[in-house]
């Protein structure tokens, strides 16, 4: 069990590509932190630096009380779970799980006991003598988890561990992974590009964009007060509506096409601005703002209405018992649910 501290960590690949811009944060002991962001934003790079698989260009990395910049991955007392499982194909499940212990010179009986215990925890007891090729995707991922937990590491590292599973299994494994981590109380860093995984699993989320940290916060904070338009549209499905608008000197908010929105402008702002409204923060059939519905998407529990508001693309999400068709319909905006961002850099105002 350990706290992980990154101080001024920075990564430039040998080809000169800056994959992670200077960043600092602390992961508390026992915390489950999710690194989320679109593909190529540097999540894996950051995780692999923590694992020791990638050199740290600059900065200090501490796991527990130890600076581990130059410590070999095997000696950092970490365990990693990979997207493609990375199981040893020629070893049985039991051997796969015990290999790391064997390399540490632990006795055979002790390894057996630990493997049995982990297998029981993961429902793998019946499969211990099988090869990975004789297991389903979900079982393989469990073996990879087993390999991580038998070592009783200070830190779990996950790199998109559920991305190769089908949707249903992914939901189930998500809960299992989270429950297991709670039970063991081991600090975990989890990389994913899936915002649902991030929202549901994390104690805290770190949103990355183009090698830069956009925001760090609990799922609730990230969702209710996104720090930028990037976070606002990346976290949440369907994404937040972001409209181009202007704040006049008398604090009226007018869309670029001339429609005035019945919202209170933020105190210290004027001129061009971005207005963000989540699709669920609107009520159909009330208010005065006209919404032109063009497409209705049935999602079962909800309906998604896509169309335009004052000439700009806009979506509204309504409950399933709310009838909806195409055409123009008035909408009202839930008070206090409007976000304002700077039009220059996209940051929250």
């Amino acid at each position: 069990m350990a706290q992980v501290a990154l101080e001024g960590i920075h990564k430039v690949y040998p080809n000169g590509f800056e994959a992670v811009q200077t960043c600092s944060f602390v992961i508390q002991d026992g915390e489950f932190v999710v690194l989320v962001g679109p593909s190529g934003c540097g999540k894996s790079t950051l995780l692999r630096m923590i694992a020791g698989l990638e050199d740290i260009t600059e900065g200090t990395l501490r796991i527990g009380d130890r600076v581990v910049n130059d410590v070999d991955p095997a000696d950092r007392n970490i365990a990693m779970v990979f997207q493609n499982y990375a199981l040893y194909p020629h070893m049985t499940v039991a051997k796969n799980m015990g290999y790391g212990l064997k390399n540490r010179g632990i006795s055979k009986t002790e390894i057996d006991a630990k493997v049995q215990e982990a297998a029981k925890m993961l429902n793998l007891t019946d499969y211990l003598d099988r090869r990975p090729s004789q297991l389903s995707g979900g079982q393989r991922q469990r073996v990879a988890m087993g390999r991580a937990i038998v070592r009783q590491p200070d830190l779990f590292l996950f790199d998109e561990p559920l991305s190769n599973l089908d949707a249903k299994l992914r939901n189930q494994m998500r809960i299992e992974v989270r429950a297991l981590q709670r039970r063991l109380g081991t600090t975990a860093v989890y990389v994913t590009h899936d915002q649902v995984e991030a929202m549901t699993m994390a104690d805290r989320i770190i949103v990355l964009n183009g090698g830069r940290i956009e925001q760090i916060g609990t799922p609730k904070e990230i969702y209710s007060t996104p720090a930028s338009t990037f976070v606002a549209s990346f976290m949440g499905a369907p994404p937040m509506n972001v409209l181009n608008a202007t704040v006049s000197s008398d604090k009226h908010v007018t869309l670029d096409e001339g429609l005035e929105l019945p919202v209170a402008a933020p105190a210290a702002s004027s001129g061009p601005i971005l207005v963000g409204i989540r699709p669920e923060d609107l009520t159909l059939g009330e208010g005065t703002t006209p919404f032109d519905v063009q497409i209705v998407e049935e999602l079962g529990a909800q309906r998604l209405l896509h169309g335009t508001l004052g000439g700009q693309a806009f979506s509204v999400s309504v409950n399933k018992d709310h009838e909806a068709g195409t055409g123009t319909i008035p909408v009202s905006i839930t008070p206090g649910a409007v976000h304002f961002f700077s039009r220059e850099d996209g940051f929250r105002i």
Partner: protein
Amino acid sequence: MADLTQTQIAQPTPSRLRFKWNTIFDHLILIAGSLLMLMPLVYAFITASYDPVTIHREGLALTFGDELGSNFEKALFEKGGFTKTVDGMVMLKNSFILGIGFAVGKIIISMMAAYAIVYFRLRFATFAFWIIFTTLLLPLEVRILPSYEAIQRLGMANTYSGLIVPLIASATGTFFFRQFFRAVPEELVEAARIDGAGPVKFFIDILVPLSRTMIAAIFIIMFVFGWNQYLWPTLITTDESLFTLVRGIKQIVLTYSDAAIPEHGQALALAIVAMLPPVLIVIFFQSWFVKGLTESDK
């Protein structure tokens, strides 16, 4: 499925007829080919059942004589050669030593070379690989004099190591293993690193077992290749007790005085013995061979 059946019902006779003719034609070609390949063997085997005088007088035969057993026995167990110390069994043993030593040596050397090239950040890894690869242009026949000179000076002439070592550098093997190693997922290496496996452990615990079908395939090719070596063994072994079958056959026929008739029967028997092990190995390990070249169990 339904479509197929219907087509067959629609025009049964012509399609079935054409099918038959095709098959017969294919088989005729295959049979002709096999006969062409097999006839020399059949001739050799049958002719090996005569005494040298008959063979000398009547040439190759197509009906069995009555010396088959004794010719094989003499070829294998009678001390022959110039020094009368070497029999067929000794040569068989030498051939196995050469074939196995050659194949195992090549596999070890080329695996280690490929391992170094693929997994270590060597300064000139790619360059080194291409240098190794260009040695394909310099087979033993081209560099035979310097090789002989070197082995001679090292005092390795007439030793098993002198017979085997100069032959085991292998560009082909290195190439195959390099391609194979490059296809092993990066994450496997990383998982092993985190599991505390250093370079040697990773090689022995993970890479070698993963490559086993590949190793088997290369072993088969190289064993046959080594078994059939002729030029180098002829040059480097002058001591008859080190003769391999492939080069020893000729020796048997030659060592009699001018007046005597060469032991053709025994020579043919020995030729058949020399052919058997490679054939058997290929037949028995066929499935491994195909697996090694096609399967990717990674």
